[in-house]
């Protein structure tokens, strides 16, 4: 269906509002494939991380310096386990959240992340790797298709690249976001400048970086250009960056969903499913 501004409004529609065809079918399909792939990559990634729950900076894990981040289950007396998280040498008791938690029988047992945060929910490295590497392909192929489509359809240039006006309105956009004030009327059809910058940062920085750092962990891909991994600080640094970027993506998703909720959850959800977004006519004074 071609994008069109004016849609026949249902009889019960609010006066002065109309449905606007906002998201094309390919964008909608690729958005939801991405949701599934990234969710599975994150959950299975945390299961893989649990096999060696420590992060280092350097070419290897054993450089003479300790890990910069570590989650551990520490024995504390007879039959007692305490969950401990260490960050830059500082130690925190994180029992019930990280390191150790109460199981179904009521015993505190070693558990790096809560079961609902990992896939499979129990520690199972070989199966987690299968999930991870399958959906890594789903994610990469989907991402490349999105890039090709966005360039070919001019979605990238038309909808995502900030305009000169956008750059000038950046200060006001920040204030608007802090006050949870959202564009209405015609302005609501376009992405605002902060939204554009957030999407571009995710598409062109975070997502390529998390993939590259995955490549850096593969001993076979390390042979492509000998030493390329050192550009990112070495193999273990790459693993650390992979982990940090994964959480930055989670932070993005939280902000993204929060903005969707405060600026009209059902309207946005419908527009990402059917493509149609309700625009309320501007109130003129």
């Amino acid at each position: 269906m071609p994008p069109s501004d004016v849609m026949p409004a249902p009889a019960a529609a609010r006066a002065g509002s109309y449905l606007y065809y906002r998201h094309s079918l390919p964008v909608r399909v690729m958005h939801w494939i991405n949701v599934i792939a990234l969710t599975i990559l994150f959950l299975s990634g945390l299961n893989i991380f649990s096999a060696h729950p420590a992060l280092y900076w350097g070419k290897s894990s054993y450089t003479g310096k300790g890990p910069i981040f570590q989650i551990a289950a520490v024995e504390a007396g007879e039959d007692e386990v305490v969950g401990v998280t260490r960050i830059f040498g500082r130690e925190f008791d994180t029992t019930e959240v990280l390191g150790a938690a109460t199981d179904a029988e009521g015993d505190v047992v070693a558990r790096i992340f809560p079961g609902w945060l990992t896939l499979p929910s129990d520690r199972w490295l070989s199966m987690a790797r299968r999930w991870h590497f399958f959906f890594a392909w789903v994610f990469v192929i989907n991402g490349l298709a999105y890039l090709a489509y966005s360039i070919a359809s001019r979605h990238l240039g038309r909808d995502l690249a900030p305009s000169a006006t956008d750059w000038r309105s950046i200060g006001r956009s920040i204030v608007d976001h802090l006050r949870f004030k959202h564009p209405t009327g015609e302005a609501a059809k376009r992405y605002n400048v902060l939204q554009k910058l957030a999407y571009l940062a995710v598409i062109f920085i975070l997502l390529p970086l998390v993939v590259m750092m995955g490549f850096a962990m593969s001993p076979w891909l390390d042979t492509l250009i000998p030493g390329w991994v050192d550009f990112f600080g070495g193999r273990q640094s790459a693993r650390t960056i992979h982990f940090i970027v994964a959480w930055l993506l989670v932070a993005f998703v939280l902000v993204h969903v929060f903005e969707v909720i405060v600026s009209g959850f059902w309207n946005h959800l419908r527009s990402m499913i059917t493509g149609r977004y309700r625009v309320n006519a501007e109130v003129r004074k």
Partner: protein
Amino acid sequence: MKTRSELSRRRFFGRALGAAGAVALSGCDALSQTQWFPKILASGEALSRTVQHLIAPRRAMAQEFGEADLSPGFRSNGTSKPDNPQYQALAAASFAQYRLEVGGLVEKPASLSLAELRTLPSRTQITRHDCVEGWSAIGKWKGARLAALLEQVRPRPEARFVMFYCADPMERDGTNLYYESIDMEDAFHPQTLLAYELNGVALPIQNGAPVRLRVERQLGYKHAKYVMRIELVDSFAKIAGGKGGYWEDQGYEWWAGI
């Protein structure tokens, strides 16, 4: 203004979303337990293997490091002291009686003592060992080039894999000896070694004495320790669990380049 029915509809959708998440997660766990689904997932790794072979040259070399990068005290993982009386007897005599048996699909089967292995063309390399768990360590390895040994025993044309049979039992009762396998491409790679030295001294028992495999472009579990016998085969489908290695039989990928 929101109507009552609209609010209850939203509450319903909210709960449905939460329930769907819980169902999806337990559904994923159930799928992991089936026979068929992990096979579909494994196609991702088959694709990785194909693509990685397409983009990385066959003879591409693993990164080598300097002395300054060496990990202090190379970590021992898996078996650190094989619970095997025959092995312990060999170790007690400093492996003077050790013989590496080489057979299978070869023209000239061989049996080499440690001293004979040391006379083969060798290579010294400082490489990084990447464990599937996520850690890595850098060590300096010296060993006989596997290619040199294979040229001596002359593989028959039908040979497709090199099997490594080890001395370390993986069960408490002393059964299920560790084993591994690699293809001919990796077997003839210049960095593939039968290592007998680590960081300038004889390979310690905890790291696989007297001989361990180094196959630098793959994960740690491929680097079989305590190698006792080498066999060239055309298929490993009928050996042990049929997947080509101890960890492979537990569900890990045979090709461990990722």
